[in-house]
């Protein structure tokens, strides 16, 4: 048999292993640097200062408009609005409103996530379903969510389910589309590798296709969040529910009272919530890209 005539390796195995280890070390270069506290602080500062500068610029422009005296009977400067915000932050009412709104956000977005993911995976897997509803999903994405409110109100009345209904219709198509795109863009070479390994059916999805789709899926979730958050705000302004002082109800009250300082404070609160959630998605996206080696060294959040 051929195996009997086999020679030993050209070099003694130990010598060869040393050569390989040496080459590995040369190719990998120096070991990655530890993140010292000073480095962490520097990178945090380099991420923070452009944002602080942008906020400062907005305040300057706002103050400048205020100083021109345009609509001075209602328009207040940052000098009035920011103390008002500070005051409201010490009141339970604002926090109660934030709590009610965020609870709806979690509920509506959670529902959209479940429904969007299930639809996404079904459409990606079943060609007939894709032919049938693939373009409808894309079409739904372009629908302004506000047009669903009349239907929602007719179906569910002036209630929280109406708001959730519109949030799901706004966010689920983006989430489904993200997942479908991710499945479609799974590299064929990886699929071949998975096939030779013997991954089939459920395990193929669990260990190859879903992880490969994750970046597009997260992008879809991020877009879905933006739609859900907008739908929620629109919903809270349209569907005023007695005894549930949400952020939308507070906005409505301040509008009726022509309280510019109160409106300004609420807009800042809503903006900050939006930015915080967006930061979470950006962090998740960066973590995924870092794990997969898709990050160029200079990228910051």
């Amino acid at each position, binding site marked *: 048999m*051929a195996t009997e005539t086999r020679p030993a390796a050209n070099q003694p195995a130990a010598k060869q292993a040393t050569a390989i280890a040496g080459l590995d070390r040369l190719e990998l270069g120096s070991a990655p640097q530890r993140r010292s506290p000073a480095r962490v602080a520097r990178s945090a500062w380099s991420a923070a200062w452009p944002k602080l500068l942008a906020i400062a610029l907005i305040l300057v422009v706002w103050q400048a408009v205020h100083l021109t005296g345009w609509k001075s009977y209602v328009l207040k400067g940052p000098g009035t609005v920011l103390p008002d915000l500070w005051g409201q932050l010490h009141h339970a009412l604002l926090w109660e409103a934030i709590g009610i709104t965020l609870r709806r956000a979690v509920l509506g977005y959670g529902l959209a996530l479940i429904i969007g993911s299930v639809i996404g995976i079904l459409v990606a897997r079943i060609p007939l379903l894709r032919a049938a509803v693939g373009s409808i999903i894309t079409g739904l994405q372009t629908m302004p969510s506000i047009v669903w409110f009349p239907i929602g109100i007719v179906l569910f009345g002036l209630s929280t389910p109406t708001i959730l209904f519109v949030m799901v219709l706004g966010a689920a198509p983006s989430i489904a589309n993200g997942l479908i795109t991710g499945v479609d863009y799974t590299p064929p070479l990886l699929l071949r590798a998975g096939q030779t*390994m013997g991954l089939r059916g459920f395990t193929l999805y669990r260990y190859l296709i879903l992880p490969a789709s994750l970046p597009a899926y997260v992008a879809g979730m991020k877009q879905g969040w933006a739609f859900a958050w907008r739908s929620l705000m629109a919903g809270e302004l349209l569907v005023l529910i007695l005894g549930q002082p949400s952020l939308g109800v507070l906005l409505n009250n301040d509008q009726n009272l022509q309280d510019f300082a109160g409106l300004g404070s609420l807009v800042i609160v809503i903006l900050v919530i939006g930015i915080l959630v967006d930061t979470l998605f950006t962090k998740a996206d960066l973590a995924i890209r870092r794990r997969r080696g898709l990050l160029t060294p200079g990228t910051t959040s």
Partner: protein
Amino acid sequence: MSVTQWRRTPPEQAPGPSAFPGAAADGPTADGQVAVRLSEVSKVYGRGPSAVLALDRVSLTVAPGEFTCLIGASGCGKSTLLSLVAGLDQPTAGSISTEGRRVTLMFQEPALFPWLTAERNVELALRARGVPKAQRRERCAELLDLVDLGGFGGRRPHELSGGMRQRVALARALAQDADVLLMDEPFGALDAMTRDLLHEELERIWGQQRLTVLFVTHNVREAVRLGDRVVVLSSRPGRVIEEYRVPRQGPRRIDSPEVARLAATITDRLREEMSRHGD
């Protein structure tokens, strides 16, 4: 070329004379064991007038434990042939038998899953074939040690060099516990120095694990350096036109004179084949 046309073409002459007189032209050992047998395998892509005949009645047998290199210019259907043996695709005509042996395929690209560490990549192959969790960790460590990557299990593919990634891919292929290893230009994208070391690495592992290897390359010297036998394929359609048995007399190096001599002979034969298409 249509399907009916190529079936009617007269049979090709038997493979030409070997460069090594006295060497057997075919793979089976004295006891007649066969690891991979291709009988009159043809593969046509497409239908009607646009059909392309990729492989034309290729017959080839590989003995257990044999290291066979397939060489040919572009369009000789080398990769098609490996896909067929791996069962990723079905032949249009003819039959392929691996006698129930497990077959695995390695590509030119490592094709590692970028979201998993080197260790997890290997582990997934073990999981796919149902190895219990308790044994997976241990087996992973053994396999990574085997390819000299003992300390790198926790790294992700992008944190490894090209040669290291290809070794992880080799460990993953070995994790599938296959008897037959199909390799599709696995070192084609690596630099010459890394390739030389990986040749030795592969030779060592082939010897230790008693593997049957079918190795596709377009590098003649690589084929002669590694193979017990070098099979030359023609291009468009792919056909076996020549087989060379390479005697194993002590250690071989890619730059040793015997390798260079046989490589020159094979290169001439390939040029002859290519000029057939140049007219």
